[in-house]
């Protein structure tokens, strides 16, 4: 997998670079957008990560350039701006996702993976999710583990689905709030902890091994290898 990063801050770029190196991705880093089009032509990337505030052309302008040159590669924006206006603008322009700084690397990774998955398989989403011994029937809204049915409340079901879609990855509280509850900010409650605890009671406690892990300072991970 080849990723292209345009980010003017060396520290942040270095961090992202090392993170993706550890995970076995190949990442090309550009300090600004001047060489972006040429670089993409020479060495096509599977995904471009664009900072919004850049010297010279900003991220929005670079995206427009790419679309003018008919480069359909998925784009993920990084920005220090929190305004929804920018967010909407980013997505209007054909950006595929958006992450505000400071971000969790795990979250960046999760989003990158999701985008790559989306761009590579155009097949319709599966009606059943399977992770290790866990099976989730999205049509019937039923969850099974080791042949045993688990009764889940609505939000617990959505939470488990989200964890299963990102099995093996660390998902942050912020991602859960955003994806499961559709809130763009932290509502200031321990709702995620409470729902995760409830989910653990149902998915893990009756069985020998627990699948839902807490990662200190980062979030949660659904462990597929049980």
């Amino acid at each position: 997998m080849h990723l292209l990063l345009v980010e003017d801050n060396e520290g942040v770029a270095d961090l992202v670079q090392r993170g993706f190196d550890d995970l076995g991705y190949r990442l090309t880093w550009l300090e600004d957008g001047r060489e972006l089009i040429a670089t993409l032509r020479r060495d096509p990337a599977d995904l471009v990560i664009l900072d919004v505030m850049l010297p010279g052309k900003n991220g929005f302008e670079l995206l427009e350039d790419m679309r003018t040159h008919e480069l359909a590669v998925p784009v993920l924006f990084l920005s220090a701006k929190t305004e929804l206006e920018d967010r909407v603008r980013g997505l209007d322009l054909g950006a595929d996702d958006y992450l505000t700084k400071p971000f969790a690397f795990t979250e960046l990774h999760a989003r990158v993976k999701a985008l790559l998955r989306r761009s590579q398989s155009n097949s319709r989403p599966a009606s059943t999710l399977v992770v290790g011994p866990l099976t989730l029937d999205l049509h019937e809204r039923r969850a099974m583990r080791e042949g045993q049915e688990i009764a889940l409340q609505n939000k617990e079901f959505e939470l488990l689905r989200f964890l299963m879609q990102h099995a093996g990855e660390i998902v942050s509280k912020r991602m859960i709030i955003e994806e499961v509850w559709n809130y763009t900010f932290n509502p200031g409650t321990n709702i995620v902890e409470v729902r995760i605890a409830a989910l653990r009671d149902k998915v893990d406690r009756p069985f020998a091994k627990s699948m839902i892990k807490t990662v200190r300072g980062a979030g949660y991970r659904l462990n597929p290898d049980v």
Partner: protein
Amino acid sequence: MRTRFPSLQWHLMLSTGTVLSLCFLLTFLVLDGLLQRNFDQQVQSALTSQAMILVEELDRVGDVEAERAGILARFGLAYGMSNGLFQLIDGEGRVALSSDDTAWGELVNSTVRGDDVELYAFFWESRRVPEKDARFLYYRIASDATVRIGMDVSARREALRMTRLVFGLGSLLSLVLSLLLLGWTTRRAVQGVRHVRERAETIRHQDDLSARVPLPTAFRETNELAETFNAMMDRVQFLVKNLRLVMDHFAHDLKTPMTRLRGLAEQSLRRGGDDEDMELAGTVVDECDRITAELDTLLLIARAESGLSVFRPSAFDLAECVRECLEFFEPELEMKGMALAERLPDSMPITVDLQVTRRVVLNLIENAVKYSETGTVTVTGTQDQSTASISVCDNGLGIRAEDAEQIFEPFFRTKDHATREGHGLGLSYCRSVLNAMGGGIHYRPNQPNGSCFTITMPLEPPPEPKEDAG
């Protein structure tokens, strides 16, 4: 307050109208007085001189009845039989001799008694029938003889009436025309001022800082006003643009090192290590997240207070939204053993920014749950024609009366609450975005203890002020 002041246009028209009317009325009265006096004098002097001539003639012929009758008849013919009447009245008040009086009809049926008239003094009398208006002069020349001269003044009086009418109508027409002209000019003059005001309103309502008053307006003064306003708007726009830029750079410059810091700590967490290192890295990550949230909220408050917020209104059910928000806190309420009283209508349709509304409502519920240990959190929703209100009341610590003024200030935290988690920006955020949306937030103490916060929001976003053409 504004309605208590008259509009400039009405004020000008009213004062000019009053002054003009008074002038016209005064002129009319003076002129009419003069004309009337003139009329009286003319009639009087005509009658007097006729009387003198007649008396002289009568004296000349002496007391010869036939001669006297002849003189009277000649006088009648000379002045026109319907215009002038010349008579001699005897001591009993009977008409002794007369010129032709056929045209005078009942006007001459009676006389003033000779005794009422002093010797050699003028006695005046006016008589009027519908078709004739006459003036009579009695002049007693002997104890048994009084001369009566009549004059038909209908035509002269009619002329006087016509003069009055013409002048009156002319004045009225001038007055109306002046007022119309004045109204038109002041309207044009005031229109320039009104343009500036309407444009300013537009800008205030829709935060459209690029709007300018179209030039030229009708007059130099209004042009100058509009130019000054436009120049001021240029300045405001420039400052706001700079402010926005500063805020963006401020956010960027702070968040980039934060990203690195958080990333490094996260990397340590990912790679693993001893418990102490993990604890440390975890704390760094948590702190970074906390500072970021605080910074973001602060920027949102600054944006809202400087009118830079961008709201994205959508139609949704506020009651449903509040119920959803309450769901977030159900576990915590349950844990604390607190009750929840939900007094919401089945549906409260509203068109505002959903994310902002959620955040405000969550903030209020969060405070209610965080600052109470027992009792009930009561959430009430009401709605009238134009606004929706949500109240969140608790039985918690409440707020001291001396603090009530300051709770909406950024970073203000009461002594009672200082030890609790939070950064003291929640209420400040709520107030700034609600004000920017055209709503508001109010605090009142709950009985017997605790606090009540009520937010109000307009059901519809403020309408885009219409573009004024011209």
